[in-house]
């Protein structure tokens, strides 16, 4: 990405400069060329004017003033000026420089000079063609109409065509030098601008390079580092900040994951050590069968605890990964709660806990029966675990416009409000040592919360001054 960005920037700059230079060179070239040619043409025009002014026509005889004819310009061998004069279709005069050669005859309207590039002996020439009326003609005085007609006729007969040509090598040389100059200057400018652009782009992208270097140095086992590149340009600053935010979130997630894994390992170690030492001690010597039976049933109880924990963990993981599909069915809440309570009734009796299902008989709700009953069972299990002997557990439900609230309450809660705010955290316990006591591993309420969330609802927990602990499930009504 870095690489192509640099190339793209440099290429863009170079193309821009190239276009600018091309336009600039073309304009300069054409302006100077025009000026040079104009200058050349102006001298041709003046020569042609001198010549044309020197020509006299006397009764069909064409004369040229001698001093003009013998002007150095028309005599010299080196880059001479040529002229040729036609009267009607015959060549009237020729410059000495021309020898016996002919110039190409061309002309425009009367008295309008026309320019043309010619070649003589492969040398470039620039020529002017001029059609003119020579001096020295006496206009006869006749009546107007005749005069006009005769004028026209005479003009036809008496106009001369003059072509003056001059060696254009100097002009061509000047123009080709100009072209060379412009091309060389452009090439130099391109190379220079490439170097400057490369430097500027590299310099400009330095913060990006620095950030990339810092990112490359971040290892997944240490996400506490942040991108610290200072003097970051405004355009890159949001990228840096977003990356740092992302790193913070990643670090937090990794920490949570690590803590969770550590917690899981810790929670599994204690029962495992129980099983292991029970088996090892038993195997250390021969025992009678009743001893083996006791030990095996003890181990089985531990295994059951671990199994519950593992399946809870698995369910939490699946809920977190959205791997659990839900079905919807009409549920009679009273029946569902009674059904969930049944497995706990013996334990409640043992601790003289009174259970009351206060949900109105006809109350129904549309939700997933299996998952809702898992949530309720976990809530009741938790309630029994923490209710004082001789205490009470009761379940209520209320219908609201767009939701239904199921509340499980129990007496004998010793938690503070601050502690209650943690009850839905994984592996949280009011007393950390409860880890070892087996039945509860601090996953029940987290599982409840995740199930209810997956069902589209929410949970909350509260404790009152008299020790009544209530967990509420708020489920949406379809």
């Amino acid at each position, binding site marked *: 990405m870095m690489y192509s960005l640099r190339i793209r920037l440099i290429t863009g700059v170079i193309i821009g400069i190239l276009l600018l230079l091309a336009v600039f060179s073309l304009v300069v070239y054409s302006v100077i060329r025009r000026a040079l040619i104009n200058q050349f043409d102006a001298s041709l025009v003046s020569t042609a004017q001198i010549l044309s002014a020197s020509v006299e026509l006397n009764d069909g005889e064409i004369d040229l003033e001698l001093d003009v004819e013998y002007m150095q310009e028309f005599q010299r061998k080196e880059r001479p000026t040529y002229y040729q004069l036609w009267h009607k279709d015959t060549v009237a005069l020729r410059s000495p420089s021309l020898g016996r050669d002919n110039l190409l005859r061309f002309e425009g309207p009367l008295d309008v000079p026309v320019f043309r590039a010619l070649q003589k002996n492969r040398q470039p020439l620039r020529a002017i063609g001029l059609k003119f009326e020579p001096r020295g003609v006496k206009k006869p005085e006749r009546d107007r109409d005749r005069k006009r007609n005769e004028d026209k006729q005479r003009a036809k007969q008496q106009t001369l065509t003059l072509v003056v040509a001059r060696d254009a090598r100097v002009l061509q040389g000047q123009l080709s030098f100009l072209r060379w100059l412009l091309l060389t200057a452009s090439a130099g400018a391109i190379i220079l601008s490439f170097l400057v652009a490369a430097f500027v782009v590299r310099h400009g992208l330095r913060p990006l390079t620095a950030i990339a270097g810092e990112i490359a140095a971040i290892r997944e086992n240490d996400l506490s580092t942040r991108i610290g590149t200072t003097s970051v340009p405004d355009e890159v600053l949001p990228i840096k900040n977003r990356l740092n935010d992302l790193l913070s979130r990643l670090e937090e997630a990794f920490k949570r994951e690590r803590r969770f894994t*550590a917690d899981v*390992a*810790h*929670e599994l*170690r*204690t*029962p*495992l*050590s*129980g*099983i*292991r*030492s*029970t088996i*090892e*001690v*038993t195997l*250390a*010597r021969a025992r009678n069968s009743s001893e083996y039976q006791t030990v095996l049933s*003890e*181990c089985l*109880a*531990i295994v059951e605890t671990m199994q519950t924990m593992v399946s809870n963990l698995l369910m939490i993981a699946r809920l977190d990964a959205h791997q659990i599909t839900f079905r919807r069915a009409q549920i009679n809440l009273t029946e569902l709660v009674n059904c969930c309570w049944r497995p706990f009734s013996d334990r409640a009796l043992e601790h003289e806990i009174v259970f009351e299902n206060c949900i109105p008989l006809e109350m129904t709700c549309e939700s997933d029966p299996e998952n809702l009953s898992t949530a309720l069972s976990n809530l009741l299990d938790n309630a029994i675990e923490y209710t004082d002997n001789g205490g009470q557990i009761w379940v209520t439900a209320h219908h609201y416009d767009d939701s239904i609230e199921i509340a499980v309450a129990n007496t004998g809660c010793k938690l503070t409000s601050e502690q209650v705010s943690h009850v839905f955290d994984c592996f949280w316990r009011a*007393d*950390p*040592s*409860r*880890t*070892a*006591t*087996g039945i509860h591993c601090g996953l029940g309420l987290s599982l409840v919360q995740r199930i209810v969330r997956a069902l589209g609802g929410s949970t909350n927990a509260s404790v009152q001054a008299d020790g009544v602990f209530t967990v509420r499930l708020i489920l949406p009504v379809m």
Partner: protein
Amino acid sequence: MRLLLIEDYLPLQKSLTKGLCEAGFAVDVTGDGQEGLWYAMNNDYDVIILDLMLPGVDGLSILKKLRAKGRQSHVLILTAKDTLQDRVAGLDLGADDYLVKPFAFEELLARIRALLRRSYLQKNPRIKIKDLQIDLTTQRVWRGREEIQLTPREYALLEYLAMRAGEPVSRTDIWEHIYEFKSTASSNVVDVYIGYLRKKIELTGKPPLIHTVRGRGYCLGVQL
């Protein structure tokens, strides 16, 4: 040798107690931190096996208080916490060893034996007193070439005397290191066991190994 086990996870507590008793240790057990602290403060245990997460008072606080009061018992921390920080914290607070759950029971026993040897400045796991040999690892005893069969209690008594060989050991010391807290006290139970032990290890025609030190107790190996 007398141990205190402070562990609140019942299945582990139960099996460890059973295993340690069967290994010949006198074991006091509690699952409560407060109670454990009281036991540790009021008895001279050879080794205290301490869980860290306990109801009442947590393991590290117990350790801190014990060391603050100058109790010298060796402490072995037994916990599911396995991070480097936990281990360093435990050892730095004065623990002598650290074992992470789950562990092999054999390793726990070996570590306890190592701590005991350290307690009694005994590097060699095989103690020799004249022609009496005691293998502390296998708990076997020989007189000359002949192996002597001892009951666990007799072995515990001999081991304790052997650890402190050459010095007089009082009846109270013996009582405190051989018997658990719950045993009913009896003034002459130590003398009775010394009698049993003498019958098994003393040989006729050879000088006695266990000497009675008047008013001070017993001494193994040396006539004081």
